[in-house]
């Protein structure tokens, strides 16, 4: 427990020092962009990894968070029909950001209510359909979203710093730290959640739904709670995207973004805490590595091939595979005698 906390802190501090030690703006922006996808992957892992429900509409929550946050910070007016215009003045950016999270969570609740009536392939198809409908709305409700013309000049997030007053987080380093802080927060929330009563309930229903019900776990309610949280974190990632990239178009809803998140989670190891981070770093940075070398189409083909290979030969993902190696070594060094200690650590 203490060891794990210490290593976690060391990693976070090391990551936080990166802009100081290696102040390459290109590197920082690439890592920050990967970081946003990692947060999205962490949120997907909550559903896919811990409750075992493969949601393939996750980009929708990312997009809803991005659009809501951007629109609230820019202000908008639309005609809702029956000559009842809705005029929203621009809101402070952090309020808009929170609004994005709330809106994504609401949709998470709604989708959970609908989709968890069915399981397996049906669930997957419902989630995909949901994301597609959202994309069509973003494309076609031009009065609200500007459609394919994109929402531009989205204000950045800002922070009050002692001495400097309010600072707009626009520099590469500031963006990096912002994403890192959000990522650590998301990680800690998910880690605390899955190591709790409700987290164990989710894992139980992933492992054996019938048995989970028999010990009093309200399966549907539990799934909806996870759906809401997962959507909320994805919405936060979307909000971060909107206020750091500062331009969004309906492509944020594309299926391929959901797939990117899925690849990150599956490659890293679904149902592990470190999985989406490891998978996210690999698949978030790989495009930059491949960029100069191959055409983007080839890059995607490599993605697809890697995903198939991982599924065929390492279906549990990278983290569990390495975990097994480490564990084997540990056991050969020292067999742990105490049962309770091991389980609670």
């Amino acid at each position, binding site marked *: 427990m203490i060891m794990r906390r210490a290593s976690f802190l060391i990693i976070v501090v090391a990551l936080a020092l990166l802009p100081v030690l290696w102040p390459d703006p290109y590197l920082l922006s690439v890592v920050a962009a990967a970081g946003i996808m990692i947060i999205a992957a962490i949120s997907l892992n909550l559903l896919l990894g811990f409750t075992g429900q493969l949601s393939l509409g996750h980009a929708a929550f990312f997009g809803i968070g991005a659009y809501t946050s951007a629109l609230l910070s820019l202000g908008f007016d639309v005609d809702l029909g029956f000559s009842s215009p809705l005029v929203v003045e621009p809101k402070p950016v952090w309020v808009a950001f929170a609004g994005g999270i709330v809106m994504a969570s609401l949709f998470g609740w709604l989708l959970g209510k609908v989709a968890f009536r069915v399981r397996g392939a049906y669930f997957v198809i419902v989630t995909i359909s949901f994301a597609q409908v959202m994309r069509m709305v973003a494309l076609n409700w031009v009065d609200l979203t500007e459609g394919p013309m994109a929402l531009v000049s989205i204000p950045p997030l800002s922070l009050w710093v002692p001495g400097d007053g309010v600072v707009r987080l626009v520099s590469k380093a500031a963006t990096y730290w912002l994403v890192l802080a959000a990522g650590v927060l998301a990680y800690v929330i998910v880690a605390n959640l899955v190591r709790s009563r409700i987290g164990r309930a989710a894992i139980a229903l992933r492992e054996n739904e019938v048995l989970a019900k028999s010990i009093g776990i309200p399966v549907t309610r539990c799934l909806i709670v996870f759906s809401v949280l997962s959507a909320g974190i994805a919405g936060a990632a979307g909000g971060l995207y909107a206020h750091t990239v500062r331009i969004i178009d309906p492509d944020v809803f594309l299926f391929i973004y959901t797939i990117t998140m899925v690849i990150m989670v599956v490659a890293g190891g679904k149902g592990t805490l470190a999985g989406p981070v490891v998978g996210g770093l690999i698949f978030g940075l790989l495009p930059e590595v491949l960029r100069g070398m191959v055409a983007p189409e080839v890059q995607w083909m490599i993605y697809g091939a890697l995903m198939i290979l991982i*599924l065929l030969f390492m279906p549990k993902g990278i983290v569990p595979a390495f975990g097994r190696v480490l564990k084997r070594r540990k056991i050969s060094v020292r067999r742990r005698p105490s049962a309770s200690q091991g389980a609670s650590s």
Partner: protein
Amino acid sequence: MDQFLQHLVNGTVLGATYALLGIGLTLIFGIMKVVNFAHGELYAFGAYVAYALVSLLQMDYFVALVLAAGLGLLLGAAIEFLLLRRCRLENIDEVMLIMIGVMIIMQNAELLAWGGVAKVVPTPFPQESIIVGGIYLSPTRLFVLGAAIVLLLAFYLVIERSRLGLAMRATFQDEDAARIVGVNVSRIYTLTFGLGSSLAAITGALLAPVFVVTPTMGDLASLKAFAIVILGGLGNIRGAALGGFALALIEEFGAAYISTAYRDAIGFLVILVVMIARPQGLFAAKERVG
């Protein structure tokens, strides 16, 4: 009224091809239980085969159709043989993700090979529409309708009446029993996946002269095929055919009388509504409990 009939005719033509697409996926998804996101890519593959043979190699369109079906069969069988055989018994999510991998590879391969610009496949039929009672009928579309209906019937007969169809149904109902009575189960799996893929490819080739050919055409096709299968009820061949016509007509009339912009959203709304109201599909008998 003419307007209405025109939409009805257009919807029916589209419906026949949707039905083909849906039946192909019913074989793979409904019966084999493989959630095949690459189905639409095989449809795009068929369209590109038509483009390559007809536009580039100046081949006869009808020969190209047959070749598209054949190549689709081979490609589908190869996918099953190489990727799915080893994880047939693994969980459904893994298979689903593997098929997504296939989808990504195929789509980008098309993009790489042909570029993002839409391609046109010339039709062997006259361009002028025939006008019957104020309704415009393009000869190409009529051919598509005719060919699709012939294929639908042929396919139905294969599944319901032939020894092969019997072996298929036996395999997917009770694999062990089928093996005991001497069915080569592995071959049935490969063949079923190949046949389903072949149907998708020929649908793509049939529609290539009607629409244009683009690398992303498979995306919507996959999702619509799922919508059709769900409408029809899982594993129900007749249901899938009806589901194809139903979805096409809903889209056609939805686009005409509600909103063109949301034409493609209608299919997904239909999925959502069907899932909420009647998860066993519209055309399936109520599922038996137990």
